[in-house]
């Protein structure tokens, strides 16, 4: 499991990679939970584009993340889910725990104008 995070304005975007199963859960938890504790962010987005699968243990980490974010009223979103991961979210009802968006940009647009502007500027800089 690999993990990256970026900040766009007041929103943090986490990007895990690979399978979020028993073997990856501890590292995933260690990487993800500190983001939920950041007091300067008002929104937290997890980009699942590079996640092939998530098991119950990986979902448990997401629930810990969601609980921590809720304590400080931060919005949480899951985006760019591959079809299998989207099915697991639906069957486990985690699609009612997170706000669901097709893309990172859609989530940022819903959460914060300043985050969207920062994201668009970042993308323009990469062209």
């Amino acid at each position, binding site marked *: 499991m690999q993990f990256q995070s970026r900040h766009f304005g007041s929103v943090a975007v986490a990007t895990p990679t690979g399978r979020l199963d*028993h073997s990856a859960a501890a590292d995933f938890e260690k990487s993800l939970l500190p983001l939920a504790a950041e007091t300067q962010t008002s929104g937290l987005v997890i980009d699942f584009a590079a996640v092939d*699968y998530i*098991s*119950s*243990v990986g*979902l*448990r980490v997401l*629930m810990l993340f*969601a*609980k921590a974010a809720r304590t400080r009223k931060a919005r949480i979103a899951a985006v760019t889910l591959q079809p*299998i991961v989207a*099915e*697991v979210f*639906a*069957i*486990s*009802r*985690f699609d*009612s*725990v997170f706000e669901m968006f097709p893309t990172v940009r859609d989530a940022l647009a819903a959460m914060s104008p300043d985050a969207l502007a920062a994201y668009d500027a970042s993308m323009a800089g990469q062209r």
Partner: protein
Amino acid sequence: MRGARFWGTRGSLPVALDAAGVRTKLKAALRGASGRTFASDADLDAYVDGLPFDVGSTFGGNTSCVELLTGEREYVVCDLGSGVRPFGQAAIARHGPAAPQTYHVFVSHVHWDHIMGLPFFGPAYIPGNRLVFYGGHENLEAALRRQMEPPSFPVTFDVFRAAIDFVHLAPDVTHDVAGMRVTLKRQHHAGDSYGYRFEKDGRTIVYSTDSEHQLTEPGELVAFTEFFRDADLVIFDAMYSLAEATSVKADWGHSSNIVGVELCQAAKVKELCLFHHEPALDDAALAKMLAETRRFEEITRGGAPLRISAAYDGLEIRL
């Protein structure tokens, strides 16, 4: 071991199909029959048999009671939920009240929904019958007696005329009971519950209800995988969605369909039966959960397929 017959499958509280529920089913069935003619009862039966389960039938509402079909003359049953009442009535109807029978009763724990049927268990009132209650709880007899004390019930436990014995079974060791090898495992639930692994004639049934798998201890998952190992049938507490079981209903002592599939796949179980249904879920919701669980098994399958069923009052599973 030949199979299992389900007399009560609901968790926490008995429920009944109400008038609105019957009306919804009737409308759906009539809508499907529009323009069709039925020349005979056989035609009607064929039509009803072809309806989706949640339209043509119901999961039912009695609380936990599962009969094990051991192939022996003596009865074996798990838990004394309200489903033990129709179980007892069926046994009396089969043999008549004058033919003495022996009932081996394995109790997962003494929460109300798992013992509430005993005062209505007809065979307990018949002289000549023999009841043997097994469990891992030291307070099993006290709990069964207490629910029949004033002011909660009009007659006490001592009104029973069957011969009654209590046998404490220690967990994690194998016991020879009623021609079976029986192993108990302590489970995470308020006041503890015990799962049972029953082995006979090379076939295995695991009865594991009221058990929360918190996913925090790798050792716990390994231990339950071994407890379920190679079972022909695992009857599993799938009361909540995983999201509920890890959030608002964490520490309520119940599990999810997702965890059931993962454990049974790891243990190479042949069939997982979803059990201890949430009383708030209607037939349509339970049918949806069954379909989703089958899909989850399909997308996570790494070896042989795991059969998935959802228990209903009256279901019989043959191994």
